[in-house]
């Protein structure tokens, strides 16, 4: 047994790798243990059919913090973008597609008034996103047991709020609590524009446009623009290439990374974390263990409720982390044709959600453990910009599909009401039919398909509930309450155990900030004795 690590990191997700690299940079000897056989966690690529590979969870890059990218020298370690500044295109059955990129909204059935209103709206919300992004770049300030740094952070926040000016400050404090549906009605007429922006507010979460909190969800996504992304970008080689680049960067800093090494438990003695036990049986010791697993998995499965006080166990079990999004991968024997869309436009982000009520109805289903009969889709055809993902002339279509429950009654393999097929087959057919409304010939082009449900995402990536963000990004679970009070500043509440996943502040999305902030906190709290 080698006991000379300063830090053991559980999981090589992107936040874990970021955190490990910063720790190594500060002189810590770090061991990263990853259950899977590739680094990156939800930033992963996979061959899902012979010759076809795809980003198997996250598919767009739009929030990676530039500082993280620079500090880790990701470009030097192989990160390359296949495309960037991609517009979001709301598909229209009649070919009147609406395209939005930065402050510009074009096409569709958009009136001039809405176009101007959108420009103003974009400018205003970018200001708000900027303010929120500052909060993301450091640990959430303590409000009560606040030390000098926290107080300073709070004062800075207060000053920034005041600097918005009276009108904007009060507007922000109102709308951040509000829902997207009403906010869109306040600003725009175009059902297309309202729908496209609403999709951004509910992506990856279990909320509909009418759900209070969704404006926060929208601003959350817009933080990416503050970090330098106009529109979305596509990583060459899929998101897995980002994981590989991060792993290379970590190794270059001296981090030891062991793949295929599953942690069975985080061990404690006398209330102090002592190390981990591997599924293969071996034990490893370190004074500090950092968990890149989501908080529920960390505390319930790895630490075990019996090792903590009941109040804490209760708080953990109350974290809402049921996913609502599925992923569909199609292997196609040619480039799909969408009504009224030129081939060059196929590289962009294609969205299916005709109006806000459509999204809301799609959401209704998941409240009752059902999947949407008419789902919302966020589609990427990565092989347009990066042909290496498929055999020559062939293509991959990857779509985020909302909404899907963790599991419908009877499980995904159970029989659906439409006799003769499972829920999985039924839902796949529904999604394909929806895409075919916009790309009529697509069914004949499909060589192979794969549907990843939230249950599959939990199995594949170890994310409890299959929730991308490791816990719902609603106001009761962000900032000073993420993941739960007592564990909000990356220190878990158990001596020696830290959290660095998307389940900690500031949350999900491939940002790298949870890892970066956690590393700073671990370093600040002193070298382990």
């Amino acid at each position, binding site marked *: 047994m080698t006991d000379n690590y300063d830090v053991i990191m559980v999981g090589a997700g992107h936040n874990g790798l970021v955190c490990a690299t910063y720790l190594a940079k500060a002189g810590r000897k770090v061991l990263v243990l990853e259950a899977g056989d590739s680094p990156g966690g939800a930033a992963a690529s996979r061959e899902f059919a012979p010759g076809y590979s795809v980003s198997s969870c996250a598919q767009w890059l739009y929030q990676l913090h530039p500082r993280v990218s620079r500090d880790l020298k990701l470009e030097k370690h192989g990160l390359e973008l296949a495309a960037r500044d991609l517009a979001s295109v709301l598909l229209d059955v009649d070919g009147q597609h609406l395209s939005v990129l930065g402050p510009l909204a074009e096409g569709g059935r958009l009136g001039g008034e809405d176009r101007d209103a959108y420009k103003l709206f974009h400018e205003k919300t970018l200001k708000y996103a900027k303010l929120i992004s500052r909060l993301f770049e450091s640990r959430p300030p*303590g*409000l*009560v*047991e606040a030390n000098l740094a926290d107080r300073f952070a709070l004062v800075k926040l207060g000053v920034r*709020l*005041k600097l918005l000016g*009276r*009108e904007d*400050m*009060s*507007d922000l*404090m*109102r*709308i951040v*609590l*509000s*829902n997207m549906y*009403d906010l869109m009605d*306040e600003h725009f007429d175009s059902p297309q524009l309202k729908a496209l922006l609403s999709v951004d507010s509910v992506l990856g979460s279990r909320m509909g446009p*009418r*759900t*209070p*909190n969704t404006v926060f969800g929208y601003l959350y996504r817009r933080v990416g623009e503050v970090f330098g992304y106009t529109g979305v970008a596509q990583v060459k080689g899929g998101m897995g290439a980002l994981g590989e680049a991060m792993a290379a960067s970590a190794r270059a800093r001296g981090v030891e990374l062991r793949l295929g090494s599953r942690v069975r438990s985080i061990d404690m003695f006398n209330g102090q974390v002592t190390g981990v036990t591997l599924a293969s049986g071996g034990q490893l010791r370190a004074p500090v263990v950092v968990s890149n697993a989501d908080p529920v998995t960390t505390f319930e499965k790895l630490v075990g409720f019996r090792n903590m006080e009941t109040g804490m166990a*209760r708080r953990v079990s*109350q974290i*809402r982390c049921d996913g609502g999004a599925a992923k569909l991968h199609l292997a196609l024997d040619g480039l799909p044709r969408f009504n009224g869309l030129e081939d060059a436009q196929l590289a962009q982000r294609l969205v299916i959600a005709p109006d806000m*009520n459509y999204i*809301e109805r799609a959401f*209704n289903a998941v*409240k*009752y453990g059902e999947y949407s009969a008419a789902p919302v889709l966020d589609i990427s055809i990565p092989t347009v910009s990066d042909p290496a993902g498929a055999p020559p002339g062939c293509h991959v279509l990857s779509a985020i599909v909302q909404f899907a429950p963790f599991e419908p009654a009877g499980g995904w393999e159970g029989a659906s009401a439409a006799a003769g097929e499972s829920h999985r087959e039924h839902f796949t057919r529904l999604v394909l039919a929806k895409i075919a409304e916009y790309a009529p010939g697509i069914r004949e082009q499909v060589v192979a398909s794969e549907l990843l449900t939230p249950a599959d995402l939990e199995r594949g990536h170890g994310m409890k509930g299959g929730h991308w963000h490791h816990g719902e990004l*609603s*106001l*009761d679970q962000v900032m*000073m*309450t993420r993941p*739960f*009070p*007592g564990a*909000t500043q990356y220190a878990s509440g158990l001596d020696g155990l830290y959290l660095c996943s998307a389940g900690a502040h500031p949350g999900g999305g491939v940002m790298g900030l949870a890892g970066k902030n956690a590393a700073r906190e671990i370093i600040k709290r002193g070298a382990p004795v």
Partner: protein
Amino acid sequence: MAPVACSGRAVGCLARGLQAEPALKKYDAIVIGAGHNGLTNAAYLAKSGLDVAVLERNDYIGGATVSRELYPGWTYSNCSYVCSLLRPELARDLELPRHGLQVVPYGGGVTFKRDGDYYGNYYDHNRQYREMARHSKRDANAYERYATDVMKQTRLIRPYLLRRPPDPTSLKLRDLRDLLGFARSFTEMGEEGLADTLKFWTKSVGDYLNEYFETDVIKAHLGGTGVIGTALGVYSPGTAYVLLHHYMGDVDGNVGSWGFARGGMGAVAGALAKSFQAFGGEIICGADVDRIMVSHGKVKGVALRDGTEYRANIVVSNLDPKRTFLDVMDESDLPEDVVRKAKNFKIRGSSGKLNIALDGLPTFNGLDQNSPLMLGDMHFTDSLERLERAYDDWKEGTWSKDPYVDMLIPSQTDPTMAPPGKHMMTVFVQYAPPRINGGEWTDADKAGFEKSVIDQIAAYSPDFRDLILHCETRTPREIEAEVGLTEGNIFQGELTFDQLLFNRPFPGYAQYRGPVRGMYMCGSGTHPGGGVMAAPGANAAREILMDLRRPDVVPGGYADD
């Protein structure tokens, strides 16, 4: 028994024709609307010595706090129907009991299940525990924790009901001091307490209850109050606060309990009116205000639809924010942002009401007619999922096909409501949208709405249908037409957290002052919101007196529990 204890005449309000004064009399202050907040506001202004008139469009006072005899011999509380939130500080200070207000607490309450069983809410603590344990021992134990936690939030908020909300954007000394006070009372709770409070304010009632309970019927019984009067579902974040809103009242110091005002809710308005009149105030009924007169940025008085004008340098609107700024005020007198904010103000109605005269006491499945459970609120929705599906109908622009009802038979407790042996039933219905599929309610829609409610009740009560003597059905259309609540919203504006505290009714105008000098708001559209609390009226009076540099005669909030 007086036929209707609180019709305008009974409290001596002047019909316009009988008025002795010349049409151009000048008052110190005019209050538009004799709802309970308008009357409270007027009472405090009069108490401080001002010459005050309340102008009421209807021939009777009370607004939505009203008792009416719409079927001979029966008194309907035909809008608001139960009492708890009325601030005890105000009731005491305005001597409402002396002026005839008596609130009789009721216990009981029951939710009937589809399988023939029910969940009862007993007044006795041990009996309640056993009833819960009958459904789930775990839930029975969790209830202790639940009650403690909700009470903690209640205690926290109660002192703030009788204060104006501080303006976080202001740098004025008073606002900064208020903000600091807020901050201090929050930090006393510690990091975890504070986080729990933040969660409580932002969570859905469904999620909140799921943290404690496992039994559907128990969650449904408790969860209904999280959506009453609200255009949100039990799974919508923010509804835990609405639950709290319904918990923070009391009857005679019993926090969280509810009661019947003897003689119907009009008794509240009646007592307020008498208190106001005792201070020398004047109520003028049948006075339909057309507009608030403004000259050189200052209020001059009001003009009625028939051309009569009343002068005053202070005009207080008890109307909801939309009616206030978009109806009775001229757009040219207002800053552009106020018009925009008023247009964007969310006031969608979500509820309807049936008031039913019964030939006798109906029997309900599996429940003894003499059971104390019959005395409280009765429901037929036995799971959160059914409650949420009822909301889905609202979102689709139609009334709930499986409606949630909050049904009471107050005549069991208050015999003044119906002739001996007969009964009066009040049925509050969630959900009913302000418009049907984007169009106005038609009589056919109203009949369909009524049928869905009657069918719901009759499914659990075999003799109910035959006992109906008269039924008054109110959709949001009727509520708006009679009481003047825009879109039929019972709270004068949705209680979503983007419209609470310093955001109520909207940012910049949350301290009861309007954008024109001398113009104020005192309705439920202002902090702390609706529910026959009388707090907005009192808080507005305090601000007006402060502006006039008169001594503050309005009691502050105190935690007496």
